[in-house]
């Protein structure tokens, strides 16, 4: 989160994360709730791939912490999971970057699944697991929504010259 002169568009970056958090909290009808994509993870993955020297584990951790507070979840569970997701996204960013869009979507599926799995483990460890298959649906919807998310965020990045 250092604001060095060559960095640009921090506000845009922040706003995309705020937008993702709001989408995550937006009320949905009961049937659609399990389908809600993992917005924060999607946005985080995008920025990790696009600006790996700027957005990383630290920001992932912070975003996860805010998500925990917003969700009333155990403090730290999403923080830890998203930090790991950010780490992997940065490690793989050179490969994911050159993938065609559908392969990127599959990578997003894997990373979001990892996020969900880590959260499930942490929940299991603290004795509050939800063992239904619907728990994994966000990974699928995240994959389906990766292309539009990617295009929108890329548009934003170019329009506001986020570096």
């Amino acid at each position, binding site marked *: 989160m250092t604001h060095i002169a060559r960095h640009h568009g921090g506000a845009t970056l922040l706003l995309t994360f705020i937008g993702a958090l*709001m989408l995550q909290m937006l009320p949905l009808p009961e049937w659609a709730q399990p389908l809600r994509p993992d917005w924060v993870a999607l946005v985080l993955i995008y920025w990790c791939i696009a600006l790996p020297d700027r957005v990383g584990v630290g920001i992932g951790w912070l975003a996860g912490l805010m998500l925990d507070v917003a*969700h009333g979840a155990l*403090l730290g569970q999403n923080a830890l999971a998203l930090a790991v997701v950010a780490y992997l996204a940065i490690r793989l960013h050179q490969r994911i970057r050159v993938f065609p869009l559908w392969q990127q979507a599959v990578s997003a599926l894997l990373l979001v699944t990892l996020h969900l799995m880590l959260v499930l483990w942490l929940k299991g460890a603290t004795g509050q697991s939800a063992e239904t298959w619907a728990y994994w649906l966000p990974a699928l919807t995240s994959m389906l929504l990766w292309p539009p998310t990617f295009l929108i965020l890329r548009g934003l990045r170019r329009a506001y010259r986020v570096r």
Partner: protein
Amino acid sequence: MVLVILSSLMMTLDHRQNHLEGIRSTLSLLIYPLQYVINLPIAATQWLDDSLSSRESLQEENARLKRQNTLFKARLQTLQSLKAENQRLRELLQSSKKVSERVLIAELLSVDLEPFTRQIVINKGSRDEAYLGQPLVDAEGVMGQIVHLGLFSSTAMLITDANHAIPVQVNRNGLRAIAMGTGAPDKLDIPYLPISADIVEGDLLTTSGLGGRFPAGYPVAMVTEVVKDPTLPYAVVSAMPTARLEQAREVLLLWPTTQQKDAPSDTAGESAATAPPS
């Protein structure tokens, strides 16, 4: 890297001892504007709905509410005398006085929380003297209790959350039990009742006041199913919450007067303090 994981692990562990409530409530200050903005369109549509409703429907509603009010008032008359009688009898028996509660109306914020948990966000926080563990009720019964406290808003766990349990008793015969949430929106489990327990379908479960968190005597759930299978160690009893947990827009925060430590007034009257709409 390792540091981040380590710190978050520490947080995960530390949270079990509830040391992080301060951090959480500070961070929730940052989240509150977002929740407020998300809630705005929904509040706006409701406001629009209210202001655009026709004259006839308003008159109709007014008439209906007046009828209801008369009815309630009539019932309240007998209640007053019964209350006084109860008080006298209790004094005669030299048992503890039944306390009355202070209440405050809170509104739900339309915000979705973690999937597969049953939690709600309300627009009252420590600024309104809400406290951790405070009971929430609606017009029909107990809803839940506050689990995270912020300055302007707080998160409450509903009685149907899989992590929630509430001490209850059968209204008919005083049989004590515990009602545990299942995670389903309309089902509570009553475990650990022996096969021989006197509980039947349609029994009303009320709070027993044991545990000191929920005041006694509020309706909690209606027993919907009792399976007494001799091969099982316990009877399988499930119940449906009487409170409209999924539809309520407004909830009541309760201050049981026995726990009124820092409230300004100690007049234990029926002070139905309605907060100004904020």
